[in-house]
């Protein structure tokens, strides 16, 4: 660079121009309102709960011939119910422990829709005596599920929406359920090895990473990648040879990258996910540690620039853990370390880095393959509604080291945390 450039630089480097008067108001109009942003974040986190909740409601609303109970509203904390010879059901309500019991006789013929569940209980459960006081374990179950109003006649018919069903003791699982580890998002799943299953899960993740590059005179920041991920996956696992299973699944992934400080790039990816396909083996958590087989997964989907992103993940995990298998409740704590190799292909019609149609091998702006060494902990569990239906939950947190080389140097230290909820139906 000669004196010519230096002279121009000297002239222009510190030059100032007066911006238009309304510029600040234009900028201000585009700045986010904090409350709105917080609202959106909450919505993102609430979404999977809504979906799971909706799924449960739909499931229990389905007319599948199972024994169902009406839901009513209640203030009572104690109930004694009697079935009398003349076909009436007597319900004694202790509104509060300090109050005297209130006894109500309700003719079945007068109960309208609310009588049906009680008839169903009796019809489907031979263990329930028809002519004496109902004093079974069922009653506890009924009480836990039901909420009684002090005015049964008025409330019951309109509250028939959530209908948990009862499982006779002989139908409850009598063997220890064993979670498998081949699920992509590692919820605590309780799959009997020989039973096919359908699994719907929802996951929200938040991952942050900061990378620095020593690219110029001062250290530039390449900061940061965030993504919220809502994943719905359904899977079918079935045994096609000894201890071999496979699972297929699709899901939707929403990825939002923000690399504001260098490229001001936002990369939104909505992608289908394919958890391990045909390669995985059910690994039963019988031992305190498991060196599982590698798992492969693929994300693919359109990106913001009119192209497609493909990410290929190969993970080799070594997990340790504590697992508790109960008939109803299951619980696990699973620390793990893993190595993950990610390669990616991005195509774009218009990319910030490449004008025109391009295909680049790129990981978050870096070319090449990314290697991640990850330490994580998962805590979760599940509740078996029945032998064939479970609700599973899990929390996940991880810290990764991602050595990358770009320009001078770059390193990423992403951390991720997330929650997984799932409902499972074994076929």
């Amino acid at each position, binding site marked *: *660079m*000669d*004196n*010519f*450039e*230096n*002279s*121009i*630089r000297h*002239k*222009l*480097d*510190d*030059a*100032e*121009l*007066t*911006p*238009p008067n309304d*510029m*600040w108001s*234009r*900028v*201000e109009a*585009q*700045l*986010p309102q*904090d409350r709105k942003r917080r609202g959106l974040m909450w919505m993102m986190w609430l979404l999977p709960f809504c979906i799971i909740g909706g799924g449960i409601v739909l499931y229990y609303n389905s007319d599948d011939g199972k024994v169902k109970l009406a839901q009513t509203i209640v203030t009572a904390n104690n109930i004694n119910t009697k079935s009398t010879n003349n076909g009436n059901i007597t319900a004694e309500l202790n509104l509060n422990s300090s109050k005297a019991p209130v006894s109500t006789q309700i003719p079945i013929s007068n109960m309208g829709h609310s009588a049906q569940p009680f008839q169903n209980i009796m019809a489907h459960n031979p263990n329930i005596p028809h002519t004496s006081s109902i004093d079974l374990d069922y009653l506890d179950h009924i009480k836990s599920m039901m909420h009684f109003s002090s005015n049964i006649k008025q409330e019951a018919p309109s509250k028939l929406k959530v209908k948990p069903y009862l499982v006779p003791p002989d139908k409850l699982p009598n063997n220890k359920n064993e979670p498998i580890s081949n699920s992509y998002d590692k919820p605590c799943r309780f799959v009997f090895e020989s039973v096919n299953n359908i699994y719907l899960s929802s996951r929200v993740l938040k991952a942050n990473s*900061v990378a*620095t590059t020593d*690219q*110029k*005179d*001062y*250290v*530039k*920041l390449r*900061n*940061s990648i965030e993504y919220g991920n809502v994943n719905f996956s359904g899977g079918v696992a079935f045994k096609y040879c000894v201890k071999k299973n496979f699972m297929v699944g699709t899901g939707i992934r929403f990825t939002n990258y*923000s690399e*504001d*400080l*260098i*490229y*001001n790039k936002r990369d939104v990816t909505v992608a289908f996910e394919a958890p391990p396909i045909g390669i995985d083996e059910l690994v039963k958590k019988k031992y305190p540690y498991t060196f599982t087989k590698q798992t492969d997964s693929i994300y693919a989907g359109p990106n913001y620039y009119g192209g497609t992103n493909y990410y290929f993940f190969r993970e080799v995990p070594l997990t340790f853990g504590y697992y508790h298998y109960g008939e109803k409740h299951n619980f696990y704590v699973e620390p793990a370390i893993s190595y993950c190799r990610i390669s990616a292909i991005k195509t774009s019609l*218009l990319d*910030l*880095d*490449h*004008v*025109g149609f391009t295909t680049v091998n790129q990981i978050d702006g870096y070319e090449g393959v990314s290697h991640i060494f990850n330490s994580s902990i998962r805590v979760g569990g599940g509740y078996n509604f029945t032998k064939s239906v479970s609700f599973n939950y899990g929390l996940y947190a991880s810290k990764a080291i991602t050595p990358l080389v770009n320009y001078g140097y770059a390193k990423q230290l992403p951390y991720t945390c997330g929650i997984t909820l799932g409902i499972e139906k074994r076929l």
Partner: protein
Amino acid sequence: MNEAEMIEGCKRGDRVAQHKLYKLYAGKMFAVCFRYASDRMDAEDILQEGFVKIFNGVAKYLPIGPFGAWVKTIMINTAIQHYRRNKRSIIDSVEYVPDNSPAEPGIIDSMSVAEVMDLVKKLPDGYKQIFNLYAIEGYKHYEIGEMLGISEGTSKSQYARAKKSLQEMIEPKQRMIEQKQSNG
């Protein structure tokens, strides 16, 4: 309120701090945007977009480098992004352009800031980006290539053309001065 306090305020989303920071940098940044933009309206759009990005991303700013440099980097990247979004590709050419004898640096010194800026503004858009990035911001050609999605060779040849254009624009003025000096 000093700069550090303004930054902290901006991280909290404090409007007053944001306004103060805007006032502190708006003039300089508008000049930067103006150099890269094809016209004043373009420059205004870039400035607006750049400040929105700055306020949205200030929480991620780590005080490793000077804040002003960070702000300027975002403005420059916004300008490049704006240019690439709205325009045309730079012709990928590594054709050698002879570097004519440079203009007398004294002529630049004798010009006002507005005149020099006007000269740079007159450059065709593609040349202007490369000239700004190389001569004023001090980026290397391979960095410019990465930023603009062109090869290093293209950046070099386009820069040589830009410089030549500038020299041609300066030439009449230089001749006039030389004539005055010989007459005087």
